[in-house]
């Protein structure tokens, strides 16, 4: 697979998750293991630009795909998270940022959310309510949600 623009050849048993392959085999420890069951979002990475939970992905399924982790991200969101106190301990932050990148791309493509008023016409502004709903797959035990929403809104503006 291609990880952060670099071709990587891995020889792994099929039960190894994409998350463990990234962290333990490629040394990319920026992607975090939180719940390891798809409930917290700390392991969020981008696969061909789409956000996924790498803990529920078997690495072998992503052969030939383009994976982007926080180590491969250079985005205004990162500064915005610092400026807006979008974290305290920082454990969920790499997942939050990868998720926010995927989320902004989805919104740009006109993908609706559960709080989108007019499904047929879609689009619309990215309100705080939209951001909260679209980012609900990323938990923050420190409760830095207000800062996270502020950081994303700052980048959108």
């Amino acid at each position, binding site marked *: 697979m291609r990880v952060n623009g670099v071709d990587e050849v891995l020889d792994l*048993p099929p*039960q190894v*998750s994409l998350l463990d392959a990234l962290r333990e085999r490629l040394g990319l420890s920026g992607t975090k293991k939180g719940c390891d069951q798809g409930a917290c979002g700390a392991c969020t990475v981008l696969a061909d630009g789409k956000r996924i939970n790498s803990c529920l992905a*078997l690495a072998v399924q992503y052969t030939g795909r383009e994976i982007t982790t926080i180590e491969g991200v250079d985005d205004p969101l990162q500064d915005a998270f610092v400026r807006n106190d979008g974290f305290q301990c920082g454990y969920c932050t790499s997942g939050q940022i990868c998720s926010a990148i995927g989320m902004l791309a989805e919104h740009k493509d006109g993908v609706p959310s*559960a709080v989108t008023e007019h*499904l047929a016409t879609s689009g619309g502004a990215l309100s705080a309510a939209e951001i909260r709903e679209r980012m609900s797959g990323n938990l923050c035990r420190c409760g830095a949600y207000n800062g996270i929403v502020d950081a994303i809104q700052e980048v959108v503006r």
Partner: protein
Amino acid sequence: MRSFTYLSAPDVETAVRAIATEPNAKFLGGGTNLVDLMREDIERPDVVVDITRLPLTGITELPGGGLRIGALVSNSGLAAHPLVRTRYPVLAQAILNGASAQLRNMATVGGNLLQRTRCLYFYDGAAACNKREPGSGCAAIGGFARNAGILGVSDHCIATHPSDMCVALAALDATVEVESTRGIRRIPLIEFHRLPGSTPQVETALAADELITAVELPALPVAAHSRYRKVRDRASYAFALVSVAAAMETEDGVVTAVRLALGGVSAKPWRAHEAERILLGAPATEESFRRAAAAELAPAVGQPDNAFKIDLAQRTIVATLHRLLTDGSAA
């Protein structure tokens, strides 16, 4: 996670041949449920057949105006499709109310149908669970049962099917197409999932060697006026306590077409036939909605932890129909 043999199937023929010859094989789609269950040692396949490279990713319009959805369409891809959003808004809303964006990007339509219950005792290897270990009992009965079912439950199992998408599909008269080495057959969605009875380990009408290849929606004009309402313990990213998929048309104050299904209440997405029967031809009033909801929930059986769902389901039906009446449609 236990070790297993991994195969990647390039086409449907190879996939169904692999599952027909391997006694303990599983198809792997998005992995959002199966990988978790394998890690928890609840699913223990010897062979995993990866089907994500099969050409089942299309959404095409059927001649009569219906829609054919490939089994490997992602949940997010289906919810975002323009024809789904305009013709079947209840389906787009149901999907968007389920899981998280990351999971919806990974999860497939076929896999969504085959999700296993989120009953805590099913996940707890030390607890009695007739679904996980037939004959061991049901710890949910009399146990922590907030998420358990109230309709079609049995003395052997009170688990619910966790899908939101399937609730909308049940309301929309969807059909599931399955294929094996023996051929292709079609199963109505509302007959796809099984009630527990005395064999809660048998969850669907799918045979062990069959692959879901597509879901089809019929042309259904009433579906343009549809809505999904989900009630849960937090505002987003939680399984339903109760959910309602509803479509309704009225003319001169009378219900002329209606589709109604419930989620979070049964081992299957619960099509509310009795409520529909009462509503069709009745005045489109709150009184009719209440009467229909009460009749549908009359056979419900609650546990101390979840008896509140009997009232909650009725109130959610009434509120959803009322909203459809005043708004016209979700779109």
